[in-house]
């Protein structure tokens, strides 16, 4: 595989050309932008009850890497509880930014789905921020909508 194809794997181009859960947003959404390149994603979480994500939807504009990553993210987070989603965010961000010298694989023991096809981005340090754009946005949103009692409540750490 040549260098370029490592970055733009077929699966990534598929997500770019046919993104999942991308639709025009209305109502409340958050805008997450990369000021250095002008890419801008709008993200929305549809909740089922107070704690479960029914679906994550997005629109906006960005490069193949940022759109594919957003598309994959919506697949990974839909159906998850808030805490599960935050864990997936944390692991995905570490996975995308993984330093090859690290011995631990942040993707170990967790299903990161198509995100693994984005691992090639690690060889292109300048493009990592494209891959992490949607993830940073949704992580911020997930953290900001945690209501205070839950954050400090005992039930978060039952043991």
């Amino acid at each position, binding site marked *: 595989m*040549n*260098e*370029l194809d490592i*970055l*733009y794997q077929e699966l990534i*181009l598929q997500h*770019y050309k046919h993104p999942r859960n991308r639709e025009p947003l209305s109502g409340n959404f958050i805008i997450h932008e990369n000021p*250095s*390149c*002008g*890419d*801008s994603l709008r993200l929305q979480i549809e909740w089922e009850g107070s704690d479960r994500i029914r679906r994550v939807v997005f629109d906006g*504009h*960005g*490069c*193949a*890497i940022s759109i594919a990553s957003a598309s994959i993210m919506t697949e990974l987070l839909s159906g998850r509880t808030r805490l599960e989603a935050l864990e997936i965010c944390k692991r995905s961000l570490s996975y995308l930014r993984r330093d090859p010298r690290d011995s631990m694989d942040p993707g170990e023991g967790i299903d990161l789905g198509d995100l693994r096809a984005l691992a090639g981005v690690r060889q*292109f340090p300048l*493009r990592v921020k*494209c891959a992490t754009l949607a993830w940073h946005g949704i992580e911020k949103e997930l953290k900001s909508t945690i209501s205070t009692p839950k954050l400090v409540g005992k039930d978060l750490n039952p043991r």
Partner: protein
Amino acid sequence: MFTLKTGRFPLLEANPNLVYLDNASTTQKPEPVIRAISEYYQTRNANVHRAVYRLAEASTYAYEGARNRVARFIGASSSKEIVFTRGTTEALNLIAHSLTRTFLHPGDVIIVTQMDHHSNIVPFWLAAREQGLHLRFWPITQTGELDIQDLETLWSEQVRVVTLPHVSNVLGTVNPIPSVASFVHERGAFLVLDAAQSVGHMPFDVSELGCDMAAFSSHKMYGPMGIGVLWVREQILDSLVPYQGGGEMIATVSETDITFNEPPYRFEAGTPNVEGAVGLAAAIDFLDSLDREKIWEEEQKLARYGAEVLSDIEHLTLYGEAAIRAPVFTFNLEGVHSHDLAQFLDSRSIAVRSGHHCAQPLLHRLGATSAVRASLGICNSKEDLDRLVDALEDARRYFQ
């Protein structure tokens, strides 16, 4: 590869396959510039203007010699008009700060253009916000040019400063500075010129252009990074309030009073970038040895050829179609994001820039959020443009 006999560019020699098309960001450096910097450190390094020993004198002589060289190169009436800065950005910050604080009053208006770089918009915006001034944007035309009639429409008695780029870093448009200068001066306002994209590419003479101040960077004209120039007409520079404070810019400091040094030293606080000034002087010698008329002639050929071959590419939008343009081409390929396109071109060893090019108001006006830019200089040739065109055609297939 080169159209002009440019001599050695060590980085390009070491990368014979590289098509470097990011000259508007920074140019590569010719061997004499690299040598001059190295020689300065090996033979003349000492702080300037401060000591009496011979080495310090040699260093001061090198630094002040560079100032003279710059003055002659741009047709300044005296080297006192040359202020060394870190680059265009610092030069524009300096002028935005000091010009407005010396001459403007709350309610006065500054006109910037829709094609300005952020480094020309933001300093004036900051000055405006702090001093109750207003900023107006001179719009561009459909062809990506500036029309003086639009300036006239925008005009009111409160306009005190007009600031604009000589050459747009996005559209390649060469603006008609002498006509703008007469218009602005007839109405008693100041004209500031952002010359970052022009000095290294065409004949440049401040008296012919007619502006009151001009800013440019060494690293975009084959010199080193970290040094630039602010030229200000002497009568104006004499009256400007200081920008940064520190050593060198003062005459006397006591517990009760401070008096300032004469220009240009009043505006050069702290130890200057002597290495940079020496390198810039070498870059100027290099440009003069090539003849700037010839350089501009060659670059205009590249500009015409590039505009022609790029316009022929299907699904490519080339922004700007100015009658007089520099070889700076900004474009988008339908269905391919600028970052992906730049990445693809890099895999073919073609270095271009992608993003908003620090000109968000302009990109917004063009209806784009980002774009690819290929910018040429004296090291480029028509073959480089041909390689770009081939790669663009392949890129569309790749992402389709």
